[in-house]
């Protein structure tokens, strides 16, 4: 290992990064685009859901029920005269649900029986439909309580559920999406960009020129690792700054712990990128492979959006070989919950093993050979 040769290689790599607009775009433009898209564009919190309301025989009782709906920030009621009109509106996707107070509603209620309130939700978007159902249940329970209060009694239901939501009491989906996004962005820089640049070196024949020079294979690898490690950590710091400064995601844990695990994850991602490019020596294929084996899993199978526990068992088991999975857990915990060491140790160990595995395999595969 020769210091001068290594700095020469690193210098060359930085010059290349600076001169090629597409590398800069992946390292700096893409994180901004992704953070803005996810920070502003992606939300799982439904608000102002348009809901059709049909009241067949208006009465004070039905009005009080509907009033609860109007006051809720989750709903935007639209009134229809008949269930047929409301159904038509739902078919035309003007409303996402229908609340139907049938004719006998008031009569049944005053008689002391239980009135059935018909609710239809558009189930096409199953997740959204479930959330809407939950919000409707909330409106209904509020109404029951208010009714009891108005008649001077307390609501008498056997169980009074008291929910304590830890770490994200207002259940903002942004608070869990933005930290996870850092793993996706670092995967892009670490794996996709690295795979592309090494493949380009092969495609253009400059790898051959490098091999003919006195630099050793270890120096070539380190000459690639160090610049993209710096670039990746830069992208990570930039993303963290945006997450905290712009999107107001709290960072409960220690910043240096975050830095440490990010570095560990970045090493694993770089290892994957280098490994891919040593297998696929053409940019088109390397790009495709990097997207399939690193970017997509980091996106879909890491717990970033979709909960791993909801996946079928074989797929959930498969997620164990995805480094982003461990990093997303660490990120969500360190941002929202704080330093929970028992959790960090297991996940950090997995990251360390993966970094060693991918870098070791790359090291083993890299010989000064052209075939």
């Amino acid at each position, binding site marked *: 290992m020769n210091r001068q040769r290594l700095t020469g290689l690193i210098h060359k790599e930085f010059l290349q990064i600076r001169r090629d607009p597409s590398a800069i775009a992946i390292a700096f*433009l*893409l994180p901004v*685009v*992704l953070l803005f*898209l996810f920070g502003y*564009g*992606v*939300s799982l*919190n*439904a608000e102002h859901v348009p809901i059709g309301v049909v009241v067949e025989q208006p009465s004070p009782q039905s009005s009080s029920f509907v009033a609860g709906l109007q006051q809720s920030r989750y709903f935007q009621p639209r009134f229809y005269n008949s269930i047929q009109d409301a159904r038509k509106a739902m078919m035309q996707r003007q409303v996402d649900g229908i609340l139907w107070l049938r004719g006998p*509603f008031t009569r049944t209620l005053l008689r002391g029986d*239980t*009135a*059935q*309130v018909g609710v*239809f*939700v*558009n*189930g*096409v978007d*199953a997740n959204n*439909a*479930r*959330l809407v159902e*939950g919000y409707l249940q909330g409106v*209904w329970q509020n109404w*029951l309580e208010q*009714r009891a209060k108005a008649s001077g009694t307390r609501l*008498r*239901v*056997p*169980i009074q*559920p*008291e*929910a*304590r*939501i*830890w*770490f*994200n009491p207002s259940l903002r*989906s942004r608070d*869990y999406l933005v930290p996870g996004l850092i793993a996706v962005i670092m995967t892009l820089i670490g794996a996709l960009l690295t795979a592309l640049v090494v493949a*380009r070196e092969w495609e253009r024949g400059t790898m051959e020129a490098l091999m003919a020079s006195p630099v050793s294979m270890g120096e070539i690898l380190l000459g690639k690792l160090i610049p993209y490690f710096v670039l990746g950590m830069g992208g990570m710091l930039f993303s963290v700054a945006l997450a905290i400064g712009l999107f107001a995601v709290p960072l409960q844990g220690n910043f240096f712990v975050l830095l440490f695990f990010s570095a560990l994850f970045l090493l694993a991602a770089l290892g994957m990128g280098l490994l891919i490019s040593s297998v*696929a020596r053409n*940019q*088109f*294929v390397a*790009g495709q492979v990097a997207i399939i084996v690193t970017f*997509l899993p980091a996106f*879909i199978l890491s717990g970033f959006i*979709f*909960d791993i*526990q*909801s996946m079928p068992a*074989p*797929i959930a088991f498969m997620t164990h070989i995805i480094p982003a999975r461990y990093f997303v857990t660490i990120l*969500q915990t360190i941002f*929202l919950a704080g330093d929970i060491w*028992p*959790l960090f140790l297991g996940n950090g160990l997995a990251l360390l093993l993966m970094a060693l595995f991918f870098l070791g395999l790359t090291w083993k595969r890299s010989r000064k050979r052209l075939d």
Partner: protein
Amino acid sequence: MFARILALVIKEFLALLRDKSSRAVLIGPPLIQLLVFGYGATFDLNHIPYAVYNQDSGFTSRELLGRFQGSSAFRQTAIVHNENQLATVINTQKALLVLHIGPQFTRDLLQHRPAPVQIIIDGRNSNTATLALNDVNSVLLAFDRNWADRYHWGKPPAQLDIRAWFNPNLLSRWFIVPGIVALLTLVVTLLVTGLSVAREREQGTFDQLLVTPLTPTEILIGKAIPGFVIGGMEAAFIALVAVFWFGVPLIGSLLALGLGLMLFLFAAIGIGLMISSLAVTQQQGLLGVFLFLVPAIILSGFATPIANMPSPVQDLTYLNPMRYFLVILRGVFLEGDGLGTLWTQYWPLAIIGLTSMLAASWLFRHRLA
């Protein structure tokens, strides 16, 4: 003219399919993505891991907990005996939620007093937390109903009778899998068309193409047709997998789906050719495709509803062809839509397609000069 275009189309197909690795890229990745998305991309909770912190020794709490044990939606992973253990179980994600039943539970209930049950839930994934809370509530409500009936607490004045249309069991797979048709069709079409001109430029064959008798328009048509054929075949294949492998119902009109697909491909190819005529190298082409794809997918309503986005972002989605095709796909698959109900989706797609095609041909001619 047709003979010339045909020759170019044949050449394009040969260029795409002869190289083993680029052939593999067209077939392998979409299949993998289809399976990964189809199985992995789900919001449906099952086997929610929960822990129990029961300070009550009476039969009532056992009865309540029995309801959770008997439900396939829940899976008990721990029993805790004090607040410290409770925090550890949540912190280390051993359980998503803890049911805390106080010491007075049975006594309260038997004396006709409402008894609290505390649900401590991990909010790190806010969507999972919301859904899990809903599930807990419905178990508690079922218990309430039964208990109120047995011990004469009186009936609630009203009750919600909730039914879901189009997807009665609320399976997110029925929502995601039709969306994959749009997603993968867009990816493949953009890759095929977005890189085609750039590859010729990089390999120097573009100049050769220019000295042939082909006019720029003919070259453009010749470059567009392979994307149309491959994208169309890919979409049809994925739709078949959606129906026969994933068991998603397809109850609407196939004609309406076909028309939507044609218009969508038209728009996607126009955008791909625009990227292609701007890119000088394949890497730039790939990057251009990527920079278009990511926002297009995220702002399409594929995974998260457009209605939840802030309104300026919602306005932006009107430019996104995938947005319209997703409505067409889900409408035809699940809601039984036909041509008549979908025309509001067709015309914006047609306009996007026409505009992007015109822009591509303008860019194409001007990049030549």
